């Protein structure tokens, strides 16, 4: 079993919402990522989602697409990402790490070899953006065999029939994309979200994380009333991009990242009394 299922079980008993920040591995330079991961945990992250750089990040908006380009400029690939996770595990055996990326780099390594290496490196889950359930076997089976959770997206347009299909293959949690659109898009309708999550929960018993469109403490608080986890990506990646690029992250950047996560964490924990 990965670290995800026990984590969500514990948070449920505490009536808390998981905070899952996303950064792209190797952005803006390889030496940043490990320090940033520890800063995220220090700020109160429950899970870290680590983007695997890809040359053609079709489902990502401009902010994260640029992060992929910055990482690729340093030649950061899947092997490097696994090395980063391995290094992270030397001092943090507790925080689950989920990789988010595209299928081609995984197939280039070989699905079985990747699953084995990922497990050895301390990866807990893998979300492959361009791998819908119809195409997910035998990849998902390889992950299950390696005790890695296959994480799937659910969209506003996903039919109940397909939610059930996803529920059969997924473990750990499912990731509800709160908007039609690419990562980093605008707008959020909490009432519609609430209704939609209720529908998903009738067909899927896994914890539901909500991402795409959460940018600050206020939106995170609103979403946490209805979601089991909130995922914050573009806003965080932009915060990192707004700092001058150096070989290593400055203490100012790391403090800012930690404080940003602390702010979201407080907002999530404040919302406990009203959580449905």
């Amino acid at each position, binding site marked *: 079993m990965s670290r995800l299922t026990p984590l969500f079980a514990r948070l449920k008993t505490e009536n808390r919402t998981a905070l899952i920040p996303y950064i792209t591995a190797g952005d803006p330079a390889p030496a940043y990522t490990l320090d940033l991961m520890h800063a995220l945990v220090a700020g109160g992250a429950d899970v870290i989602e680590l983007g695997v750089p890809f040359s053609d990040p079709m*489902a990502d908006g401009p902010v994260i697409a640029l992060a992929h380009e910055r990482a690729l400029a340093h*030649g950061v690939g899947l092997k490097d990402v696994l090395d980063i996770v391995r290094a992270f595990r030397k001092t943090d055996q507790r925080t689950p790490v989920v990789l988010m990326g595209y299928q*081609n780099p995984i197939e*280039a390594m070989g699905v079985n070899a990747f699953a084995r290496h990922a497990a050895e490196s301390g990866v807990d889950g893998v979300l492959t953006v361009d791998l819908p359930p119809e195409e997910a076997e035998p990849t998902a089976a390889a992950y299950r065999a390696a005790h890695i959770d296959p994480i799937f997206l659910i969209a506003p347009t996903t039919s109940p029939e*397909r939610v059930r299909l996803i529920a059969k293959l997924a473990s750990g949690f499912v990731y509800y*994309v709160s908007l039609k659109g*690419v990562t980093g898009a605008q707008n959020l309708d909490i009432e519609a979200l609430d209704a939609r999550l209720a529908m998903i929960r009738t067909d899927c018993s896994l914890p539901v994380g909500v991402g795409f469109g959460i940018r600050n403490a206020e939106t995170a608080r609103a979403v946490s009333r209805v979601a089991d986890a909130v995922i914050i990506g573009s806003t965080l990646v932009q915060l990192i991009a707004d700092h001058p690029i150096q070989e290593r992250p400055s203490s100012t950047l790391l403090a800012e990242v930690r404080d940003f996560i602390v702010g979201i964490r407080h907002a999530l924990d404040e919302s406990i009394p009203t959580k449905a």
Partner: protein
Amino acid sequence: MQTKDTVPTTPAVEPSVIDFTQFPDEHGRFGEYGGKYVAETLMGAIQELQDAYEHYRTDPDFIREFETDLKDYVGRPSAMYRAARMSDAYGAEIWFKREDLNHTGAHKINNAIGQALLAKRLGKTRIIAETGAGQHGVATATVAARLGLECVIYMGAEDVIRQQPNVYRMKLLGATVVPVESGTRTLKDALNEAMRDWVTNVDNTFYIIGTVAGPHPYPQMVRDFQSVIGREAKAQILEKTGRLPDAIVACVGGGSNAIGIFHDFLADESVALYGAEAGGDGVETGRHAAPLTAGRPGVLHGNRTYLMEDDNGQIMATHSISAGLDYPGVGPEHSWLKDIGRVTYDAITDAEAMSAFHDVMRYEGIIPALESSHAVAYARKLAAKYGEGKIILVNLSGRGDKDINTVAKMEGITL
């Protein structure tokens, strides 16, 4: 119907054992290739498109409207032409299927019309497309203008600079041309950006993909709209020569003109089929766009197919003199046809294509597109092997007026 497990994926299969009309299968696969590798956010739109296409592909009204447009607007059937002086020079009977004579100057219009008619029936008010050289962009802007639909064309910023006349043509047709600055700033990045637009505006927007790639049902749908080329060609060559050709040659970027002319001949074992990929500076230099010749299978832009990728699975920058072939992937049906040995794929260098371009001009008085010149260059090699009396049919997929600046530049001439 054959299932994935019974489809042989090793070469040297007798075409007679395969019913080519039964592919793709219900999962959108050609053997192990194809499929629907898209984000969940797009699955709803893909399903809607698939349902609509399943319905309309056999709908008599839809078929009638499509065929009427091909006849009255595109000017089909396109001519079948015996290239007499070229035949003498090359040493075999060379015939051209004249897709260059279509309205807008290439085969691209066949597919753009088919998809636009579908968009209209789905009630979509906005059309988007990607384009490389600008031929598919022009074809899409053309049909959008005719149907009164809003049109946005995504084009790599590099290509916008290289293909100014087509950019202006699209604007004159009322389209908005968006230069794409991400990645390598070429066709693959334009496709990424068009996908992003589609995900965001899926309610009112129809995405007209220009080639036989992308998620299912695009490879099937585009093939079906383009296969008019092969159906016409078969009837015409039988009428003019009394027999089937010995070989058919087409250029392959994404591969829509090639699938279009091949498809009706797949079951005719006596007809050898050849796809000419863009060899750029030569496959051995690494500067090319020939995934079938020098790539390996992977997943990109919604389908599993042969790709040009590095050891980390990153998609590589491609190179070809022909912007229309400058793409790191290829339609999944081609990947399958390669593996089962039904079609032979080989690369033609920039220099060979350029030489063939001049041959077509001087022997036949036709300006061929640089894309199509790759097919002619391959026919020349084939003719040397085949000899007199053998019939080689070349799909002259587009006209080359758009390319004269590129040709002049290659030869150090400023126009």
